[in-house]
């Protein structure tokens, strides 16, 4: 159980701020994924944790102890690099044994630990080879083995799968998930691929411009994104956004939203959700309505639900067989992407009527902040 805590950590190089006051608790025995677009500081955060870089201000705690002044090796942390960083002149065995040799372990102990690790990673037959004789997937395994063999308190992965091709990536993703279950230690995983984060992580931290936008379980982030950025980053294909305005307030905290197509929709908003930002919800203020491609339905017959109809024409179809993503140009401007059944054909140019259920709307104010909804309490 190793908990990593960051308290108000900043990192700037010259005048450029890379990490901007991050406070974060990474709980023990879980996998935390740091995601965000490139340049958001996620790799820097990882390097701060392992000690390759020093924070400008703030403290980093590992197991409750401040490690700011400790060199990487004393932090008891292992890191797997994006480029693997295997020592090219050493055999696989020596690569894995290097840290143990420096730590002064006995020869028999080293041999035993390396053998055991190689066995878990299925690389026993490669121990005598040099890195250049290995394939990408094998190098990746050896790099992971080099981390595991030290029995570290925590593992840091810096985009470990981004150098592999698609087939190998999903295979390694499965292996990492298996390893995670076996090792049962703290893992921090940096990736720009939200899919990897969704499948591997227990907790996802979404970062942007050196700040944490939202931290939560994958499903929390999926169902309750705090703002437009998180909403657009999590989920594949991405969420659709529609421009709308506040039409009127009705009794019982019902907000009437007017879409561009002049359709209106009544949504219920909890009492405290708008506290302090009432002016953003005055009549006529603009809103963004987010809706996931799978929430839209083509069938217009379901009238028992509250919702709104969107009319448009099909502009592009991506049919995967099991499902089809249909791009629809709406009549009054705007596009939406909708997931429909793969067993139908959708001709380009055909008119289509979509139904957007009220309960699946994400409402964002003019600042991009999400408005909490009633139904959300029951979701997670």
């Amino acid at each position: 159980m190793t908990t990593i805590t960051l308290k108000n950590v900043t990192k700037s190089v010259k005048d450029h701020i890379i990490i901007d006051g991050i406070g974060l608790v990474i709980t023990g025995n879980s996998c935390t994924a740091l995601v965000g677009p490139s340049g958001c500081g996620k790799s820097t955060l990882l390097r701060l944790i392992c000690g390759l870089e020093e924070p400008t201000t703030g403290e980093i705690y590992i197991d409750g102890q401040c490690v700011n002044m400790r060199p990487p090796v004393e932090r008891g942390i292992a890191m797997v690099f994006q480029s693997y960083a295997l020592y090219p002149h050493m055999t696989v065995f020596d690569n894995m044994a290097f840290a143990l040799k420096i730590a002064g372990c006995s020869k028999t102990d080293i041999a035993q630990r390396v053998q055991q690790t190689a066995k878990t990673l299925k690389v026993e037959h490669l121990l005598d080879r040099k890195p250049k004789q290995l394939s990408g997937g094998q190098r990746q395994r050896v790099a992971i083995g080099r981390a595991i063999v030290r029995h570290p308190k925590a593992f840091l992965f810096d985009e470990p799968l981004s150098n592999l091709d698609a087939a190998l990536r999903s295979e390694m993703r499965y292996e990492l998930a298996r390893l995670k279950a076996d090792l049962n230690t703290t893992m921090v995983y940096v990736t720009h691929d939200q899919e990897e984060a969704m499948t591997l992580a227990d907790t996802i931290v979404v970062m942007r411009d050196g700040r944490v936008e939202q931290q939560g379980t994958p499903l929390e982030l999926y169902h309750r994104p705090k703002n437009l950025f998180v909403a657009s980053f999590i989920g594949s294909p991405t969420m659709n956004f529609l421009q709308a305005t506040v039409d009127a307030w009705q009794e019982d905290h019902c907000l009437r939203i007017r879409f561009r197509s002049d359709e209106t929709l009544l949504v219920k908003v909890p009492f405290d959700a708008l506290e302090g930002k009432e002016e953003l919800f005055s009549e006529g203020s603009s809103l963004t309505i987010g809706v996931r491609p799978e929430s839209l339905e083509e069938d217009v017959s379901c009238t028992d639900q509250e919702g709104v109809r969107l009319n448009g024409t099909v502009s592009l179809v991506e049919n995967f067989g099991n499902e089809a993503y249909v791009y629809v140009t709406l009549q009054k401007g705007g596009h939406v992407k909708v997931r429909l059944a793969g067993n139908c054909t959708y001709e380009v140019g055909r008119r289509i009527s979509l139904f957007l259920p009220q309960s699946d709307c994400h409402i964002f104010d003019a600042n991009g902040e999400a408005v909490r909804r009633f139904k959300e309490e029951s979701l997670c």
Partner: protein
Amino acid sequence: MSHIVLKLQQRARHLFFCLFCVLIALLCLFPFYWAIVSSLKSGADIFATDLVPKCITFQNYYTIFQDRTFSCALLNSTIVSFVTVCIALALAALASFALARISFRGRKRILIAILSVTMFPQVAVLSGMFELIRTLGLYNQRSALILSYMTVTVPFTAWTLTSFMREVPKELEEAAIIDGAGHFTILTKIFLPIVSPALVTTGLLAFVAAWNEFLFALTFTLTNEVRTVPVAIAMLSGASQHELPWGNIMAASVLVTLPLVALVLIFQRRIISGLTAGAVKG
């Protein structure tokens, strides 16, 4: 039609290129060939201009080894060059690691200083060097040559190795840091093995420079016991003052070149690129 012309053009170009290569090779190799040929002639034959000697004799080689001077000079050259290369590489390895990998104030200035030192002509430092060696009491000793050769070889090797050390991926160093290695372990266990082809190459060049050096060797030595081969060759004299023993000089020159050729042949397998293959992606 046009593609036949094109083909002919291509052939002509190829032929021209081959001729050019042969010309350059001839230009480079002829002096060496002439030295070998001359060394195998004796007496008045040496002034004949035949490309192939009429009769081959090893008399010249025999003559230069009759006197202890030449073998002594060979030994001196070997000791001086070998020690110079060893010390220069050791110093340069440490310096270049710091210059390439550790950021400190004035790093760039030191690099520029190193580069500018290599640009000084030898004559410019000769008198100062002479004073230094006299003060240190090293005059007419092999250590005087080692010390003075290092002023040339250390900056050169340090500069070259620095650029090679820079090429080593940063992740390797970081991985080693996380594995618990200190600066010295990183240098000896990670960097030096990776840049070993560069070490061999620069070491070889430094060896050649020390082996062929003439001016310092002439100035800082006095007696035959400490002279190196280039000076010894220049001092070779014939039966009379007015006779230059060309045959002996040529034989000595050929012999002096052989160790260098042998070294290059021995190490050529190590002078290979791509030793970092497999370290990082790719």
